[in-house]
């Protein structure tokens, strides 16, 4: 376990954002819903990482956890969300020095520390992170909107109908960059132009209802870009749009990514959109990631039975006239710790062990590069029993780690 960790950590250092074993639960009178249950992933600058899954699988909660938008009865109950944007780390280290652990000065990361400095060159921090999961509300507010922004599904509900579009962009500029008056207006106009909205100087004075659907989503993206974020979280940004407009928005996102070296986390249920825009893809099911791979690999060679089922249930050119493959049953509510495979009741390949061994993300085979599946069938090149053993050992290792 320990050797594994170091390699993992080394890889993480390139990530702008790394999420480690994130747990977000909702506490209701009846039950505790583990909406995000031990999710880990990373996003590098300039790349697009997709999270796909059906509704209720926990995609949006993952995004909201990163944005610090989880509200009661929800709570992040464990894990780390490490944001490594150096500008933000520098600012935070200066502002919240009491909560900063400076490893270069021999500090240990304490319970309340959420800014960690790992390397510095004199006064300049060259490596470090902010742990959003442990940060208090006021610190989260600072990151949200300035370093990390989010674009939501429905552009009409994410814009306030009684303010002009310009006002809403200017609000973000005022809060995060301190711009006011004419300066803010000029910046708002140039943002609208950047997202391809024509005659921006007039549009900036218009209300959301005067915009078409695609135009509204462009305005929302402009608002999200207002503070020059490094990470953009897109939660189903094109689901409410027509295909020809969707194509325009996807093109816009790609352009903006190239221009600004944006890291994009892209949440969607549309496999076509994923294939189009994502470099790497995580498949989410009942609060867990069940498969991850590069987009090419995932679509060309899906390994987890859930991914296979999901892909074959999409009507496409080859299924004309045939019955569509379906996945039996419904997505379960993850309301207890997973000691088994949550997909097993619906899985066509389930066997006995699936009911009492919890699968963890494992390389799908010896040669697999960056392709993991959380299924007892993998790695596929070792005997079944050995594969199951591996999953079991890694589970208990994780448990002892937690109890320590």
């Amino acid at each position, binding site marked *: 376990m320990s050797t594994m960790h170091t390699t993992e950590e080394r890889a993480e250092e390139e990530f702008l954002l790394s999420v480690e074993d994130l747990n977000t639960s909702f506490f209701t009178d009846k039950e505790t819903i583990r909406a995000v249950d031990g999710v880990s992933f990373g996003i590098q600058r300039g790349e697009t990482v997709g999270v796909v899954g*059906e*509704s209720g699988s926990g995609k949006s909660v993952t995004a909201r956890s990163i944005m610090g938008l989880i509200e009661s009865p929800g709570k992040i109950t464990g894990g780390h969300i490490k944001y490594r944007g150096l500008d933000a780390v520098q600012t935070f280290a200066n502002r919240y020095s009491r909560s900063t652990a400076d490893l270069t000065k021999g500090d240990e990361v304490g319970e309340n520390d959420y800014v960690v400095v790992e390397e510095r060159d004199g006064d300049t921090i060259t490596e470090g992170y902010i742990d959003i999961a442990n940060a208090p509300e006021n610190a989260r507010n600072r990151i949200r909107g300035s370093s990390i922004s989010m674009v939501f599904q429905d552009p009409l509900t994410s814009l306030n109908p009684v303010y002009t579009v310009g006002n809403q962009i200017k609000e973000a500029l005022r809060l995060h960059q301190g711009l006011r008056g004419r300066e803010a207006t000029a910046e708002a106009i*140039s943002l609208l*132009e950047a997202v*391809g*909205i*024509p*005659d*921006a*100087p*007039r549009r900036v004075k218009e209300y959301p209802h005067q915009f*078409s*659907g*695609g*135009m509204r989503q462009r305005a929302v993206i402009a608002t999200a870009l207002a503070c020059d974020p490094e990470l953009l979280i897109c939660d189903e940004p094109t689901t409410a749009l*027509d*295909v*020809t*407009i*969707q*194509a*325009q928005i*996807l*093109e816009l996102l790609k352009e903006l990514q190239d221009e600004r070296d944006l890291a994009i986390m892209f949440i969607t*249920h*549309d*496999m*076509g*959109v*994923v*294939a*189009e825009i*994502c470099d790497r893809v995580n498949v989410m099911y009942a609060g867990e990631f069940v498969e991850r791979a590069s*987009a*090419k690999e995932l*679509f*060309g060679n899906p390994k987890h039975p859930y991914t296979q*089922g*999901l*892909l074959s*249930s*999409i*009507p*496409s*050119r080859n*299924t*004309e*006239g045939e*019955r*569509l*493959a*379906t*996945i039996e049953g*419904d997505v379960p509510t993850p309301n207890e710790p997973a000691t088994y495979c949550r997909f097993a009741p619906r899985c066509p390949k389930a066997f006995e062990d699936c009911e009492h061994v919890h699968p963890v993300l494992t390389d799908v085979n010896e040669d697999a590069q960056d392709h993991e599946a959380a299924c007892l069938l993998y790695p596929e090149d070792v005997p079944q029993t050995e594969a199951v053993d591996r999953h079991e050992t890694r589970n208990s290792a994780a448990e002892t780690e937690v109890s320590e």
Partner: protein
Amino acid sequence: MSTSDSRTTTESVTGSDTLVRVRDLKTYYPGGGIIEDKPVKAVDGVSFDIQRGETLGLVGESGCGKTTLGRTLVRLESATAGEIKYDGTEVTSLSGTDLKRWRRNVQMVFQDPDSSLNERMTIGEIVQEPLNVHDWPYLSVAVTGGGSDGVSVAGSKVEAFDRERHGRPDITVSLDGSTSVEIRDAIHMSQADVSVSVNGDEVEVGVKPSKKQLRRARVRELLDTVGLQPEHYYRYPHQFSGGQKQRIGIARALALEPDFVILDEPVSALDASVQAKILNLLEDLQDEFDLTYLFIAHDLAVVEHICDRVAVMYLGNVMELGDAEGVFDDTANPYTHSLLSAIPEPDPTAEKQRITLRGTPPSPRDPPSGCPFSTRCPMKIRPEAYDDLDNDVWEAIQIFRDVLRERENREKSVTQQFLEFTGIRDPYADIDEIVDEVFGHLDVPDNATRHIETAVEMVREGDSDEARTYLHEEFGSVCEQEPPDAYEVSETGRVSTCHRHQAEYESPADYLQTHVLDD
């Protein structure tokens, strides 16, 4: 119009059994203005047939009028002009009891299962409601067999069968030999529940279960048909998932045993795997009950999967109409080409050249005078002199003309309007800058440059009107002048509405290859 008429005849020969016949249907919403009262032309002259037992798909972007068309067919909206014949009956003029009776045959499943189910009613009540409204079952009794003529039917719950009113008898009493009774499947009674006594010319039929009981039994059966559990009867809509709610909507639509069901985006709000289940269910139900579907959707993959024939709509008009296979694999119309190329394929290795349309569809309040798609069409017909003009240059000329046209409507905002078509930044550029932005990076051949310069000169002199006319004469084409006819483009009778199908022009598919995609 002549072409679409000839189509009608060919279709009525091939299509043996037309259930719905729509001709030149128009649905306009009146404009609210006091001085200017331009209507919104949501559906603007649409003609098609739906054969019994088939699924016709209706696709298009939002705002193209597909939902309005569907709602007009079930008389939820009233048609402004045109005819809708359902099984030979003119629907647009139905009223009163005729309308109510006709509506039993035509049902609708709505897109949003959340807003189409009453939160305060149980599932049982929701599915039963249409039965209550239409006083189902009639318990109509038909008497057959020897000496059945002139026999009257008596009984407190039953009524005599009348084909006009009931369509089919619920109970059939046969007087041949010993008296026997037959009950339709949808009505859940055993023969023991029905007592028949013959008194001379009067057949008295007694039915034991009450209508309420029969309705409840019918609801239970419907829940089972759509794949829900009996215990769901007493639950409320919020206790169901999206897929289950859509099943409830389908059960409600089937309650009155319709022949024709309009499915308005029935799976758009659902996840892929749930969507697959509902699509399979719809196919099963169609087989089981001989249903005819009008399937409205914007997801072309779904439409291709479930539909026999497809109509592609744009701005209130049908652009292409024909067998699904032809529409998708041997696409004829430029708009269909553009729409298909915009769909993201679930295959990251797929390399397809995308046709990116500029802008958004024009307002249906003020549609273009010629072809509805002419403002965005990448395959617009060019005057002969410019046939070999580079595609980028041609597109730039179109943009330039669009800008000037907009200037006419809004004198002050020429640059603003120009930006709508290009996304270029500086809104304060004057005409020279516009020309520079549009044509600056292009190598415009002399013959075109000359005309553009003349037009620019006119604009400079403040005569943009003249400039527009000049450009229109030089670069305009039939696409902007006349609405195209529907041309038959395949042996299966598929039709496409585009000027390019005339013999003198290059067909859209060829043109796409030679002019649009290769650069």
